[in-house]
């Protein structure tokens, strides 16, 4: 099943190489088109307002508006960038295994009749755009409360241009990782490893907040975070089940395993905190939920329902310990824990997809390995995908941060401005007037 899906993406991409898209138009499938239109709305809803509220509630009162604004500004900028060049680099027709070329700049050659498989190309392109929006928005969690708005925006645009678009091509746009047989149904590597590693490098370069580790940095509004987290859960149905690019059995299974993994991740985190501290925290529960969702993302097209349970359990446990280790032991101020939750979740899920795809695991069986693949060779491909996207992201992120620092005379606000807060410092307004 998964192989078929990858092949269909590959075939579309390969076909685009030799003939204008319009001439390979299949008959439009209304059900599939309807579902991907819906999924597009669901995934945009994850960023606006899901992730924005989730992140906004986790910072301090004086920074809430800046976080909402960062997510919003990324959404509008990346939308334009997608039209100008992003779709072309990620999904344009090209001979290269590394990028899609520039022939689809400004959606050149795409009109109302253009098809991508059996859905309109505009629908496919809009759906993929929402993934390009949320990925840099996830990184916001690493540098909140201390980055200059100008640095943030330039970095996010360049990062999406030079990290997200190429990696999306490698995995989904007919590039080398997809051709190798990498299982990444909805973005374990493309979205979560890139965002997680990008966040980790950014946190290391920008440094800790002045009051890192002190109780004064605790979240100002967990009601807001709960609201946003619940929206992320719902929106994730579009993210994962929409990645089937059809309203079919693959979409149904992806939706179900996604839900099970989210619930398992949340429950796992709650139980760990309950045992360790005597009380399960609300923030712990929703963080475990996000960990379960991030972890199932690459595997959602290949595992079965019981496999989804294992993925959620692994995501909850591993992301929990990664979060406490990074903050408490390594003292890295990835402020909202983007790497330990999204990056580590993406890595664990991409790895597990190579195992739980097997149909020889009894009740934990998945949809079956692709022809010619063994579990060993599939896991090898998965590890290659994780390492390639992680290392590439780390290097490019580091270089971009240095370039942006040079362009904007440093990426960090002054200590005094940090004390005042990013709302006033960056925007001359406040989230709350009380």
């Amino acid at each position, binding site marked *: 099943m998964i192989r078929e899906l990858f092949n269909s993406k590959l075939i579309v991409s390969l076909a685009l190489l030799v003939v204008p898209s319009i001439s390979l138009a299949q008959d439009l499938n209304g059900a599939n088109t309807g579902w991907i239109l819906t999924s597009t709305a669901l995934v945009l809803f994850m960023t606006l307002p899901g992730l924005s509220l989730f992140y906004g509630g986790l910072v301090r009162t004086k920074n809430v508006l800046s976080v909402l604004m960062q997510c919003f500004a990324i959404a509008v900028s990346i939308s334009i960038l997608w039209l100008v060049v992003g779709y072309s680099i990620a999904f344009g027709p090209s001979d290269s295994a590394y990028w899609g070329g520039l022939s689809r700049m400004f959606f050149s050659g795409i009109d109302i009749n253009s098809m991508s498989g059996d859905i309109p190309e505009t629908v496919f392109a809009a759906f993929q755009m929402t993934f390009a929006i949320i990925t840099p928005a996830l990184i916001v969690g690493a540098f909140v409360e201390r980055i200059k708005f100008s640095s943030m925006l330039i970095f996010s645009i360049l990062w999406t241009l030079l990290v997200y678009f190429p990696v999306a091509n490698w995995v989904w746009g007919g590039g080398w990782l997809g051709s190798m047989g990498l299982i990444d149904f909805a973005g374990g590597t493309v979205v979560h490893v890139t965002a997680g590693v990008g966040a980790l490098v950014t946190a290391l370069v920008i440094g800790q907040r002045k009051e890192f580790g*002190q*109780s004064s940095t*605790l*979240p100002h509004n967990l009601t807001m975070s709960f609201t946003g987290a619940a929206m992320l859960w719902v929106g994730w149905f579009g993210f994962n089940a929409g990645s089937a690019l059809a309203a079919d059995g693959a979409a149904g299974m992806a939706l179900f395993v996604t839900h099970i993994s989210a619930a398992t991740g949340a429950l796992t*985190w709650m139980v*760990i*905190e309950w045992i*360790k*501290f005597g*009380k399960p*925290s609300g*923030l*712990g529960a929703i*963080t475990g939920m996000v960990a379960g969702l991030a972890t199932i993302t690459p595997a959602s097209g290949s595992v079965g329902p019981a496999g989804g349970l294992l993925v959620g359990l692994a995501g909850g446990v591993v992301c*929990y310990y990664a*979060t*406490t280790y990074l*903050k*408490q032991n390594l003292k890295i101020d990835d402020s909202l*824990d983007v790497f330990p939750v999204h990056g580590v979740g993406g890595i664990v899920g991409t790895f597990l997809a190579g195992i739980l795809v097997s149909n020889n695991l009894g009740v934990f069986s998945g949809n079956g390995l692709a022809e010619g693949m063994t579990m060993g060779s599939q896991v090898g491909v998965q590890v290659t995908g994780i390492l390639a996207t992680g290392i590439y992201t780390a290097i490019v992120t580091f270089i971009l941060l240095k370039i942006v620092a040079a362009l904007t005379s440093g990426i960090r606000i002054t200590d005094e401005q940090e004390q005042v807060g990013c709302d006033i410092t960056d925007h001359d307004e406040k989230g709350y007037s009380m």
Partner: protein
Amino acid sequence: MKLITAIIKPFKADEVREALSDVGVSGVTLSEVKGFGRQKGHTELYRGAEYVIDFLPKSKMEIAVSDDMVDQAIEAICKAAGTGQIGDGKIFVTNLEQTLRIRTGETGDDAL
């Protein structure tokens, strides 16, 4: 005249107000404040880590009374605010030089 400043547990504020009314105190100013004493702070959880909160929320009540009312008022506060647990709070008594009612211009005990 004396100014009584009582730092109490927030959930006891209503009982203290009632007890003061019962002994004839006709006005109280209440503020929400934070602080620490022997009770120290408490911990809060953030994603698998405990953070120490040094300052606990308390209620601060300011009561201006005539000299002959001081003992009664203090007794009322102690009775109403006490739980026997650490963190019940403290009472400070200071001399009050002058009181003035803005509307009428009355001063001293008449303004209380």
